[in-house]
């Protein structure tokens, strides 16, 4: 009887529901391959459209891929419509998802977009794979002139002498601090402003972080927060590396981060997290700025290494409890202060259907008028004279800190395979921060894996 109910008592060779389901499950197994295969297969074929320089073939259609945080650039879409009679379609993407999105599309030999947002981390990769059109000619037109841009902010998009991106805003992580918290524990709230120009101020930074950490009024406070998940920690590691006089790569692009400077940098990060426990303990789960910023904005994180624009966001009373008490300055120093450039760019894809519309949008975006509008929203302009305009500087005093931060090293080891080896190095540093490997072991292993990856 039991068999009757389950349909299993009489072994029959015909097709039962169960067998059919079993087949379905087996087919599902094959889908594990099929899913990838479909994507891979879609990568063959497709159109090719190589245009070398901006022209005047305006098609009346423009499609943009912008970062979800790029409200200021998104606002230019309407302006483009007013000026040129073309309303751009805008697709948005978060920064962590950007690389997957655009590379998948370009590998399939399509580009639904005519201008695409890119970061310093992946800009050279776009150039190496010929997915981005070189912008040299465009950048040399007025008001854009290569020499008007910050040299360090253009390094990430420079691949073998050609520029593969036009900046829309410049910046590198700065030190943000909560002056109110400083005062509550009896620390000088203005002290961090000069740390960047004071040798070995990292030690002072650490002492302050220790003082700021602790439970007050039933609330846990931490001296410092940051985003250290995956390869995002390379902004802080890279800053420390250069503060100690080290570099990610040598002139030939070979890894040299396994130096004493590299080891000392990891040890400093380890000490913050484990020895002195002055860092937000969830720091290793924060993938990007917006994972870590709520902690700082809630008013119980003393210091924060992050992007300049957070200084503007921190002034919004709807989301921030540090309105009017958040200070900004370049990061502290060991031998020197340092940071890692994180300027952002737009490029015209090689496969764009309307490349000239793309260039025309970039032209609008990089005009003085648009850049002033962008600077008015809290994102530093690509033009120094706009950032230092007294009216703008009064409203956004941290633009001075951005300019100051570029006086120090801001290299990020930018290379075409930066995204790949960045993940390897990020993973190995995580192992060291978790105490699974020594700093030296982690760096040596990262270099070994990176070289293997490059050879394979």
């Amino acid at each position, binding site marked *: 009887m039991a068999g009757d109910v389950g349909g299993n008592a009489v072994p029959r060779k015909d*097709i039962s529901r169960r067998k059919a389901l079993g087949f379905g499950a087996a087919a599902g*197994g094959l889908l*594990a*391959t099929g899913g*990838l295969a479909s994507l891979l297969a879609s990568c063959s074929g497709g159109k090719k459209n190589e245009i070398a320089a901006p022209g005047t073939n305006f098609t009346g259609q423009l499609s943009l891929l912008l970062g979800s945080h790029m409200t200021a650039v998104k606002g230019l879409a309407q302006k483009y419509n007013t000026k040129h009679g073309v309303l751009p379609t805008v697709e948005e993407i978060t920064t962590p998802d950007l690389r997957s999105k655009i590379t998948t599309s370009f*590998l399939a030999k399509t580009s639904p977009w005519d201008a695409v947002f890119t970061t310093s981390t992946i800009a050279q990769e776009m150039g*190496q794979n010929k997915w981005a059109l070189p912008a040299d000619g465009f950048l040399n037109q007025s008001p854009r002139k290569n020499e008007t841009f910050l040299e360090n902010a253009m390094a990430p998009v420079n691949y073998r002498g050609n520029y593969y991106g036009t900046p829309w805003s410049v910046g590198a992580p700065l030190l943000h601090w909560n002056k109110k918290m400083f005062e509550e524990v009896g620390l000088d709230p203005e002290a961090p402003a000069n740390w960047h120009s004071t040798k070995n101020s990292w030690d002072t930074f650490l002492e302050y972080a220790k003082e700021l950490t602790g439970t007050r009024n039933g609330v846990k406070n931490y001296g410092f927060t940051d985003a250290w998940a995956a390869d995002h920690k390379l902004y802080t590691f890279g800053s420390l590396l250069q503060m100690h006089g080290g570099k990610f790569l040598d002139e030939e692009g070979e890894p040299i981060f396994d130096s004493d400077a590299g080891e000392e940098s990891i040890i400093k990060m380890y000490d913050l997290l484990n020895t002195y426990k002055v860092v937000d303990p*969830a720091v290793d*789960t924060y993938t990007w700025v917006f994972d870590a910023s709520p902690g700082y904005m809630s008013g119980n994180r003393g210091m924060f290494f992050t992007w300049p624009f957070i200084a503007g966001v921190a002034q919004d009373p709807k989301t921030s409890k540090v309105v009017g008490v958040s200070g900004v300055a370049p990061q502290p120093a060991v031998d020197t202060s340092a940071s890692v450039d994180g300027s952002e760019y737009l490029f015209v894809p090689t496969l764009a259907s309307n490349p000239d519309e793309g260039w025309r949008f970039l032209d609008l975006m990089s005009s003085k008028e648009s850049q002033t509008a962008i600077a008015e929203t809290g994102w530093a302009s690509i033009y120094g004279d706009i950032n230092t305009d007294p009216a703008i500087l009064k409203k956004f005093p941290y633009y001075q800190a951005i300019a100051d931060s570029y006086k120090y090293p801001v290299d990020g080891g930018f290379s075409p395979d930066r995204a790949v080896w960045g993940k390897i190095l990020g993973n190995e540093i995580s192992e060291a921060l978790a105490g699974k490997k020594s700093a030296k072991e982690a760096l040596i292993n990262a270099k070994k894996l990176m070289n293997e990856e490059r050879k394979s």
Partner: protein
Amino acid sequence: MTNAKLHILGLKKEKRTAWLFILPTLILITCVYAYPIITTLVYSVTTIDISTYTIKEFAGLRNFQYIVSNEFFNRTLVRTIYFGLMVVVVTILLAIGVSLLINIDFKGNKILKILILLPWAVPPVVSGVMWSQMFQYEYGFINKIIKIFGGEGDTIWLGSPTLALHVLIITEIWRWLPFATLFIFAALQTIPHSVIEAAALDGAGYIKTVKEVILPIIFPGVIPVAIFLFVSAMKAFDTIFVLTAGGPRSGTTTLNYLVYLQGFQQFKFGRAAATAYILTFIILVVIFVVFTLNRLTSKRRLIND
């Protein structure tokens, strides 16, 4: 014509009809999947130049050799199988419990049945975001509950590889529980009341009836569910992508996620294709083992009957 011959002819006709019904699906699956499956096989033995997306060289079994000799792959393999088994075992146990519960007639039973199905309607990306907020260490619901019950409530759930892997397991169980419950509940519905009544007349209590009567009856129906769950767990991607992105310290990277990393982060398409084939092979082996075990236990049950 004898009755036996008529019976055989009837069976043959039934079989033919069954094949006719299945044929369109078979043709569709073959057409849609044969091409990519073959393409992937070609990729798995080649090296691809990503700038032109052409085959650079024939690599033979080099991709497979690289993968199986790689320590990272071996750790990922063990983690993937553990992940899959946990999802299958816990989901099925919970589904059996929930099915038995909703099989009892009580007020609100119908509402409960609808509520149970809800997680199934939630897109995986949405559930991933939802669970990540629930497990957030400072403001998350889970730690708040722990605090209410007197605990510290400061666990960083997604901060350690082991904890994060189990958070993913919980999320996948939550996602697939409605499906498993629906299937097992359907199997329960097929049990004639007379069987339960006979067990009661023989003096069996509820627990004994479940253990000795209900579970053996529904067991054959659980097998396809187990296979489906295992295959789904092996293919889990969206939840991992949203919740942990394979971290921390690669502690939640499963084979399917590794295929994505190799293919669309490192652009090693040959290697990704080879990993995909290994994953498929593992799934097929598990399906074969489960079917074989089921056949053996069915035979033994027949002999016992």
